C-alpha cells in the first residue's frame, strides 16, 4: 500500500498546475454547496420559526373530523339517510376549563382559551374582512409570542380601553390607523361594536399582519352573539416538532378537531419538500460538475501513464493495485480540495450572513438567514469524495485493462 501511495503522490505532486486546478474545482463545488445549503435551510428555518411563532402549535376547535351521527341513523342503522339537517348544537367547546386543566396535566407545554370569529372592520370609509380572536392576555403569554411581537402598546392595554383591539401593522397602514383611534367592527350577526386601537403588532407574516385582530374574549363573544363561549383552545409546546403527535392525542382525548401547525400549513410544507428536492438536485449537480475536473486530470494522467501502467503490470503488480494508484490520486485531490472547500464554504456563509435584503412586502430590511450545520460539511465532503473516486475509477479501470504487450510493442 505504501508503494501505491508513493506512486500516487509522485504523480500528483509532479503536476502542480493540474492538481491545483482539480483541487480548486472540488473546493468551489464543496464551498458553494455548503453556502447554498446554509442559505436555503436558513431561510426555510427562519420562515418556519416565524410561522410557528405566529400561530399556536396546536389549535383545538369546536368541530369534529366527521359529521356527527344523526338520531335517525342511531335508531335505524340499516336505513340510508340523506338531506337531513344536523342536530342543532350550541357552538363552542364544552366545559373548556376542565378540558384545559386535563390537558395541562400531560401536554409538554401550555394551553389557553380563545374565541375566534370573523368580522368587518370599518374605518374612514374602508371595509376590510378580518379574523377577530378574543384572548385572555395573561394566559396568552403562555401560548403565543404576541407580547414580543407588539410594536406599540401592550397586551394588558386591551382591558384599559373600551373594547380595545390590537391590530397588525400592515392593516393599520392600510386603514391609516394609529394607536388610540376608534374603529367600527361589524359581526356576522349584524352586531356592531366601536373599538379602540390599543396596540399594533408585527408577526412578520403579511397575511397575518393584514387580517388578524385581537381583543379580550368578551367583545369577541359579543361579536359572535354567544356569551361565555370558548370555541378554540390554543396549545404551545416546548418542542414544536411534536405538534402532530400531541394533536392526535388531544383529538383522541377531547373528540374535538385538533390541528397541528404542520397540518394547518400542509400545502406550504409540501412546497418546501419540492424546494428541498430541487435544492438537493442542484447541489448534487454542482458537486458532480466539480468532480469533472478530477475526471479530466485522472484521464490525462492515465493516458500519459499508459507505458508506466504497462510496465507495472508486466513487473507483476496486480491490476487492482495499479487501479488503486489513480483512485488514491483522485482521493488526494479530493481530500485537499474538500478541506479548502470547507473553509471557503464557511467564509461564504459568513459573508452572506452580513448581507441585508430589503423586503418590499414588509418594508423591512432583514439579514440573510444562514443555518450552520456540521451535516452540510460532512455531506458536501462525502458526496464530493465519492464523485472524485467515481471520476477516477472509470478512466483508471479503462487504462489498467490495457494489455501490457500492446503498449510494450507500441513503444518498441
Amino acid at each position: 500500500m505504501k508503494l501505491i501511495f508513493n506512486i500516487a503522490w509522485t504523480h500528483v505532486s509532479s503536476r502542480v498546475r493540474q492538481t491545483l486546478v482539480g483541487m480548486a474545482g472540488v473546493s468551489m463545488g464543496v464551498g458553494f454547496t455548503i453556502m447554498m445549503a446554509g442559505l436555503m435551510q436558513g431561510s426555510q428555518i427562519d420562515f418556519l420559526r416565524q410561522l410557528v411563532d405566529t400561530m399556536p402549535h396546536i389549535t383545538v376547535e369546536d368541530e369534529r373530523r366527521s359529521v356527527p351521527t344523526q338520531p335517525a341513523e342511531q335508531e335505524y342503522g340499516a336505513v340510508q339517510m340523506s338531506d337531513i339537517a344536523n342536530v342543532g348544537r350550541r357552538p363552542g367547546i364544552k366545559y373548556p376549563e376542565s378540558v384545559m386543566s386535563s390537558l395541562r396535566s400531560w401536554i409538554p407545554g401550555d394551553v389557553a382559551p380563545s374565541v375566534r370569529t370573523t368580522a368587518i372592520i370599518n374605518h374612514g370609509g374602508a371595509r376590510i374582512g378580518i379574523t377577530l380572536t378574543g384572548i385572555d392576555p395573561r394566559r396568552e403569554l403562555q401560548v403565543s409570542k404576541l407580547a414580543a411581537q407588539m410594536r406599540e402598546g401592550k397586551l394588558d392595554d386591551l382591558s384599559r380601553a373600551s373594547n380595545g383591539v390590537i391590530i397588525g401593522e400592515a392593516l393599520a397602514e392600510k386603514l391609516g390607523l394609529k394607536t388610540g383611534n376608534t374603529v367600527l367592527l361589524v359581526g356576522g350577526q349584524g352586531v356592531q361594536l366601536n373599538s379602540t386601537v390599543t396596540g399594533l403588532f408585527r408577526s412578520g407574516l403579511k397575511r397575518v399582519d393584514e387580517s388578524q385582530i385581537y381583543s379580550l374574549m368578551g367583545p369577541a363573544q359579543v361579536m359572535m352573539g354567544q356569551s361565555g363561549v370558548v370555541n378554540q383552545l390554543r396549545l404551545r409546546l416546548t418542542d414544536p416538532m411534536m405538534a402532530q403527535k400531541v394533536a392526535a392525542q388531544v383529538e383522541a382525548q377531547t373528540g374535538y378537531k385538533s390541528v397541528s401547525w404542520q397540518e394547518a400549513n400542509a400545502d406550504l410544507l409540501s412546497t418546501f419538500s419540492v424546494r428541498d428536492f430541487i435544492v438537493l438536485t442542484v447541489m448534487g449537480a454542482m458537486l458532480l460538475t466539480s468532480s469533472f475536473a478530477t475526471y479530466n486530470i485522472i484521464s490525462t494522467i492515465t493516458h500519459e501513464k499508459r507505458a508506466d501502467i504497462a510496465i507495472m503490470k508486466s513487473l507483476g503488480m496486480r491490476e487492482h493495485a495499479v487501479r488503486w494508484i489513480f483512485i488514491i490520486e483522485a482521493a488526494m485531490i479530493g481530500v485537499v480540495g474538500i478541506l479548502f472547500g470547507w473553509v471557503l464554504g464557511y467564509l461564504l456563509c459568513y459573508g452572506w450572513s452580513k448581507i441585508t435584503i430589503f423586503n418590499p412586502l414588509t418594508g423591512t430590511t432583514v439579514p440573510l438567514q444562514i443555518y450552520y450545520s456540521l451535516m452540510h460539511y460532512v455531506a458536501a465532503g462525502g458526496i464530493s469524495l465519492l464523485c472524485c473516486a467515481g471520476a477516477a475509477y472509470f478512466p483508471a479501470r479503462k487504462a489498467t485493462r490495457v494489455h501490457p504487450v500492446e503498449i510494450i510493442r507500441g513503444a518498441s
Partner: protein
Amino acid sequence: MTEVALQAVELVRRIEGTITHTLVNGVDLAVNKGEFVAITGPSGSGKSSLLYLLGLLDAPSEGEVIICGQPTSKLSESDRADVRLTKCGFVFQFHFLLPEFTSLDNVLLPMRAAGIMSEPDMRERGLALLGSLGLEEHAHKRPNQLSGGQRQRVAIARALSNRPEIIIADEPTGALDTKSTEQVFSILRDIADQGQTVIVVTHDPALAARADRRIHIVDGKIAEVMGRSGEEVVCEAAS
C-alpha cells in the same frame, strides 16, 4: 541431470479476426537453469510473441508454459502476475523506467510490490545492484538525467531486484550504441554465468553467438537450434 527453468509445450498463439494470424505455431522448448538462450529471427517471425508467452505477459491460444515446474495455463491473471513478480525479470528495448522516480526507486519497485523484504534491506539490495552495474553514483538520479546505456542498466537492475529465476529480455540493446550494447550483453552473460536463466530476443547475430544456445524462429516455428560454437543441437529437455 540439468534442471529445467522454463518449458514450452506445443505453444500456439493466434490472433482471431477476419483473417486469423498465427504468431507462434506449435513451439516446444525447454530452457535449463543458468542457460543463456538467444532467440533470433527476421522481423515478424514471432520471436517477441514467443518471448511474451514465455514471460506470461501474454496467454497462449494453445499449449502450456511451465515455469520452475509450475504449469501456468490455468492460472488466474492475478496468479500470473504473482509468477511474473517473483520468478521473472523483464528487460525491454525501451527502458520503461518510471520517469518521476530515481534509479534506486525504480529498482526498488518490484521489491516493494512483492513486499517480502524490509525497507532497509530493499534499499541495501537496490544500491548493491546498481553498484554491481556501475551505477552507484546515479542511484538518486532520474531517468532523464541518465544516458541510454545507463537507463538500460537500471532496467536490468530492476529486473534482477527480486532475484528471479529467469531474465527475459526483448531486444535489450536495440536502442543502444555499440559500447552500451557490449556492456549490456556482458551483464546478461554474467547473470547467466551466476546461475540465472537468461532468454533474450535479438537481431544481432554477433551477440546471439555469445549465448549458450540460439533458437532461430521463422513463421512462428523453431527453424533451427544452434549451440554456442554454431553446431546444431537437440535440446534434451524438449525431446
